[in-house]
């Protein structure tokens, strides 16, 4: 699987992502610079976490206008696979590649903690190693992860099975109003969503930071294993 990770000024989780990708693919991903105007031949583009442009104005707003985003849009139009994590998810919503927006966390504080996610759709390139309803632990680290969308968008996401992950209690129950299980207050406890063709996935938490028992577990690894399984040609 040929992968590339985009680095914007202020991106800071590209190394974490590279470690995770290398662990499952055996190859170091290509690092792509925000000023690049063309993509090399890739199976997967990853927009990693961080604070592109300091997250000033709105998270992801300025990165969405980087030269490379034009190439990434074209890649998406040709059916390319894109994973956006944290700041990457914010950038995907800012470019309109995914619907909705990410607002300040409901508690107005940056949150860095473990959360639990439930797999809502296990028939995607990002989730096929899980079963629908599986619950896994993963770290999150963000100040603006409160997913919102208008009623119509929400309905579309639900009816088209495009919610990939929801925040849940460790036992798998969803309660969007509960700050313990849905820490940033996301609408319908949404933690990750998919594009209409299921080839673009954006999520706030960081599965790439939990792929090694030494760092506390491998709970995030199935996501990367799924991608390898789906994309290795």
């Amino acid at each position, binding site marked *: 699987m040929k992968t590339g990770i985009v680095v914007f000024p*202020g991106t800071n*989780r590209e190394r*974490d992502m590279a470690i995770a990708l290398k662990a499952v693919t055996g190859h170091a991903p290509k690092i792509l610079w925000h000023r690049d105007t063309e993509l090399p031949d890739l199976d997967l583009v990853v927009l990693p976490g961080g*604070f592109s442009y300091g*997250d000033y104005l709105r998270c992801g707003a300025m990165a969405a206008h980087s030269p490379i985003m034009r190439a990434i849009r074209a890649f998406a139009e040709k059916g390319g696979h894109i994973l956006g994590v944290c700041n990457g998810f914010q950038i995907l919503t800012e470019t309109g590649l995914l619907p909705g927006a990410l607002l300040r966390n409901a508690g107005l504080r940056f949150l*860095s903690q473990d959360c639990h996610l439930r797999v809502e759709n296990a028939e995607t390139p990002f989730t096929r190693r899980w079963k629908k309803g599986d619950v896994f632990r993963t770290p999150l680290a963000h*100040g603006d992860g409160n997913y919102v969308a208008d009623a119509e968008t929400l309905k579309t996401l639900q009816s088209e099975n495009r919610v990939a992950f929801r925040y849940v209690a460790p036992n798998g129950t969803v309660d969007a109003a509960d700050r313990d299980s849905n820490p940033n207050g996301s609408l319908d406890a949404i933690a990750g969503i998919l594009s209409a063709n299921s080839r673009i996935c954006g999520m706030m938490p960081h599965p790439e930071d939990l792929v090694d028992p030494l760092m506390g577990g491998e709970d995030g690894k199935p996501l990367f294993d799924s991608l390898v399984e789906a994309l290795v040609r």
Partner: protein
Amino acid sequence: MSSKQKAVNADLAREFGLSAEEYDRVLAIMGRTPSFTELGVFSVMWSEHCSYKSSRKWLRTLPTTAPWVIHGPGENAGVVDIGQGLAAIFKMESHNHPSFIEPYQGAATGVGGILRDVFTMGARPVANLNALRFGAPETPRTRQIVDGVVRGVGGYGNCVGVPTVGGEVNFHLAYDGNPLVNAMTVGVARQDKIFLSAAAGIGNPVVYVGSKTGRDGIHGATMSSAEFDENALAKRPTVQVGDPFVEKLLIEACLELMATDAIVAIQDMGAAGLTSSSVEMAGKGGVGIDLDLDAVPQREPGMTAYEMMLSESQERMLIVIKPERTEVARAIFEKWELDFAVIGHLTETGNIVVRHKGQIEADIPLDPLAEQAPIYDRPIAPLPAPEPVGDIHDPIGLEQTLVRLIGSPDLASRAWIWNQYDSTVGGQTVRRPGGADAAIVKVEDTSIGLALTTDCTPRYCHANPRKGGAQAVAEAWRNITATGAKPLAVTDNLNFGNPEKPEIMAQFVGAIEGIGDACRALDFPIVSGNVSLYNETRNPDGTKSAILPTPAIGGLGVFDDVTKNVGLGMPENGTLILVGETKGHLGQSIWLREILGRETGDAPDVDLVAERRNGDFVRARIASGEVKACHDVSDGGILVAVAEMVMGTGHGCTLDTPQSGMRPEAFWFGEDQARYLVAVEGDGKDFLSAAEKAGVPARFAAEIGGDALVLPSGARLSAARLTTAHGAFFPDLMDR
């Protein structure tokens, strides 16, 4: 600054913080009346903050060498050998005064400053820690300061992408008007790629990189060298605003440049900005330096030479570069969209010459500026003996006492704080806050791990500075040992009151002696540090109160094989053993303060021989793989430490009866040093007999199992109940 017009004389010198004798010395060095800008340069270079004039004599007594020390104090940060050709580079620094005036920006720029001290030497920062002291929780402003400081530390560290993995927090009335914000950064570099600050090569260009210069924080260095009074609020505009986004770019750009061979010398612009960086770089290299301020990137029009030389605008560095590499360097900084300007060159004059708009604004000989900097042997008064402890009795029983203690400000869960700090970015965090006695970070692509901690018990230092100083070092050493790592070296941040008061000076000297004793006994040298004096506030009646003496110790340890680390969470089964001798010392204990409302008695004894023996034994047992978890016994004593282990995983244990012949509260809550709780598999007999052979006191403490902490009385405290009691303090204080 309209003060530009002011005439330079002894009065102005005093306003700038120079005493009459110091001003006379300036006149003698210059052989004329200095210019306004020159006076500014002298005043910041000779401020307490930059010159260490009250502390230098004593700092020299500290042990700073060991075979693994590559660079001790004197560089931007300390450097130690961690094996495999790599070095850890680390330092701690205070931002106390700015954090009182503007908590968010004060704390944020504190983090920014210490990061620069570390990456300026060629290290990629891999971890941040923060040691915080706040006023009493009841004091209304405390809440606001906690809020701003925590947001600021997180806001900066999270954005630059360096995980914040540990720290400490205390609350005490003595910090009401003067909180302490001490930030520590640890970085990793290749030993053959370490960059120093001594300038060299006459004619070599001097390059300015980073953000533009504005009128930020002019005279910050002198401000942090003066006591606080109500005028402090009028000095407000001296606070700087940080830009962590630019810092992140600066880290990447500097590391990229450092991978080439372009750099001769490099230093960050910290306190006193362009002045201290240029003076120190040229001074250390024994060369002169010419600066052309017209070339300095400026944020605002009309800045004077004085303003530019003293500005403390953040996120800036000064580099002496090989002339033929200037364009390579420029291209790197342009790629990262940072300012890059050649603003001068090195000369053989031995002077710093500052030109602006065709005028020479300053021309100062560097040697006397450094060598004739004042150094004081401040008088010391004998300290009063610690107050007797007074009558001791347990008013409420073990169970209630424990619940109260683990919910008290100094022992309650810090999760509310560390949950606002990104502790996992980088993907190398092996033990996050709360997971072990020291945070553990793996060095990417190696088997090496670093164990990091900050420690100080100010109430001990107040009662007995020498014991308190030794205790702070011992606790840092112990926290590292309890993870299985080998303690290597220390950075310190010595926070005290006004050194012109003999009793404060005595606290300072006592603490240094204690620190020195412990560092020598434990082979744990000081490789970097920072002194913050004049931490005092004016009371309504005009008197001034000092903070508790707070020599914060930042410790670093290393694992050759980080998979051999242990955390502090109770395992599912096995045996809990108490290592070290229990004498039941309750003086200055948290129990005494929280339960009886008294801050009396002497600090506990620090037996450094026992400390070393017990610690070396525990570390060896961890290395052998038989230890499942380990936690040092410190604040709150044995029972609190056991409760912390239980809360760590939710697994419980059933406690043995206390040592015979000792009051239960003294056994359970006494704060004797050199002790550990060690969880081993099985019945622990092997461990106990090994301890006996090694001459290490050890006794059975509990049988591990269940999900509750069972007291000798049979009373059960479920892990859930403990966790609720432990977790309430911060949310109750901050989120109401």
